[in-house]
């Protein structure tokens, strides 16, 4: 067992699960989407991205790309949240909430790709 691989897999999976946790619930109901979960998802996603830095394989490149996509989507969701609540006084209307959650939904897809690639790579190693 390789500790590095465990940590790597852990963060990539955690990024997906946290993202999913935030995403699940009524799309326009702000009560179903905790801000802490979004925060945790962003932090864990950033860590997962950095962990993928410096890989020089093809699959490593796609892993990094998918992570960057997830980061972008989640940060966009957070910025939208911040602007809606503090910047423009609009507040978390159903429309804003729906936008935030759908952005995180996109990130979820990217994270799903990440995990799938990780599983494929692991399955390809017959050791």
């Amino acid at each position, binding site marked *: 067992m390789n500790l590095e691989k465990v940590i790597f897999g852990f963060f990539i999976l955690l990024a997906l699960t946290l993202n999913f946790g935030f995403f699940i619930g009524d799309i326009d109901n702000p009560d179903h989407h905790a801000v802490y979960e979004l925060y945790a998802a962003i932090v864990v996603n950033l860590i997962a991205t950095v962990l993928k*830095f410096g890989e020089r394989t093809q699959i490593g490149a796609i892993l990094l790309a998918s992570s960057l996509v997830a980061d972008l989507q989640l940060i966009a969701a957070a910025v939208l949240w911040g602007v809606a609540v*503090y910047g423009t006084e609009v507040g978390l209307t159903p429309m804003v909430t729906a936008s935030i959650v759908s952005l995180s939904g996109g990130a979820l897809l990217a994270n799903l790709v990440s995990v799938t690639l990780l599983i494929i790579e692991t399955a390809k190693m017959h050791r």
Partner: protein
Amino acid sequence: MHTVIALILRRMRGPLLLVISAYSIAILGLVLIPGVDDQGEPWRMDFLHAFYFVTYTAPTIGFGEVPYEFTPAQRLWALVAIYLTVITWFYALVTIIALVQDRQFRETVTQARFSRTVRHLRDPFYLVCGYGDTGHLLVRSLTERGLRAVVLDIQEERINLLGTRDLISHVPGLRADARQPETLINAGLQHACCVGVLAVTDDDQANLQVAINSKLLNPALPVTCRAETEEAAGNMASFGTDHIINPFEAFGDRLAMAIRSPRMHQAYEWLSSMPGTALMERPRPPQGTWIICGYGRLGRAVHRFLDDSGVPTVVVDETPEENGCPDGSIRGKGTEAHTLDQAGVKSAAAVLAATADDADNLSIIMTARDLNPDLYLGARNNQLSNKPVFRAANLELPVEPSYIIATRILSLINAPLLPDFLRLARKQEPGWHEQLVGEMRRVSGESVPEIWTVRLDAVCCPALLLALREGLVKRLGHLLRDPGDRDAPLAALPLLLARSDEVYLHPGEEAVIEPDDQILFCGTERARHQLEASVNNINTLRYLGTGELRPDGWLWRRLARQSTVRMQEEYKR
């Protein structure tokens, strides 16, 4: 560039992870700890403000406690946040600064920049391994001829010199071990524009390695090698190195030729010096006894060639037994008068100082001249930087190994037919040599002539092929005319004409030319440009061949044809 980015990312992975963790812990703490607003109501910091606070705290900017004054509990956590983020932030900064200064990193960056420059080269270039005196002479002459060069050398200082020298075009250089195949590939060994490898380091083994790697990685590429021992030369020849140059053999050979057939030697010298320099008429080496001081590689080669030509020699060496000197050799350095006396300097005809030390060589020469002012003196100049002293010593025969190698390689590059010409010319009578030297002097005046090859094919001169097909030009003499005035001759001399498997030495004006002929010329630089211009212009060729000046273009051609028809009709009448 990939490796550079990958290296940065890999090195920054740890510090970045630390920064992210520190930020996230600090932000989370600020959000979770309850505070009070300016009305005294319970209030909790939101993520936006927490991130803002941490962002200005970490680089020690510190705008104060926003948006409301902190409670003691919040301040306690802010303390933790400050130490945590400030320290990790600086750690990350220091890591990236250290990385930029890291030797390995900088080398990676230079290497990446170098291979990118080489990859983007779009002109034919030579890969020069070794940038010593020889390499420098080669690179300078190549760039002056509009060719490009890429330089590899194992010494940092030499590559730094490359930047300070005044070269016409930019020459990419890298401090690297040319023996490594990867280095050669980075330097453009497999690049489509690479036209040859010149291995001219002072280490035979390194040259050998470069040659074998090049021959395996790009078999079609011509490789020219410097070799100073016969074993290395034999080894290089065994796997098909195209040209092997041994400066000492070359020198010994020429010296013997200068003694036996001075005119041929003169032609030889003129054809292989640096073009544009002044033509030298050196005194003919004497046939009396030669004293050779130093029985190294040069001494050995000279001794053998002189021996073969029947010139008597006396060898002076510090350790005659160990160096395998011939019988009757004198023990000593040659710098002292008594050693030279013992060798018979009073009755000798010539002294050659052939040691590997420039100071010793000069000392030998000065001592010998004192003892016998009529001597013919030769000395080996090992370092080009000492050249002014050797020039001041006013020698009859200076020997510069680096110059010999550089001029040989250059003539091979410029005129691949030259070795064939020299081989054939050697077999000719002295009278023929005399005539050749006279003609060369006529075309090139007082400076060393340029030598170049013209191949009459579609790549070099499609216009000439057309002119040959239409019968506008037939003979070599047609090309050797001034394109401005066909009655004036061009200052160029055809040395050799090669046609599939036949070669014609010194073809005359009436020689018939055919497509795919290769012709070796020597002459002035101006003549070279004129010839190159005229073989590429059908109108000039028509003028040279027929004397007819005709306007070109569809309309003018039609008009010209009509006027010829009319003229013919008038003529008939």
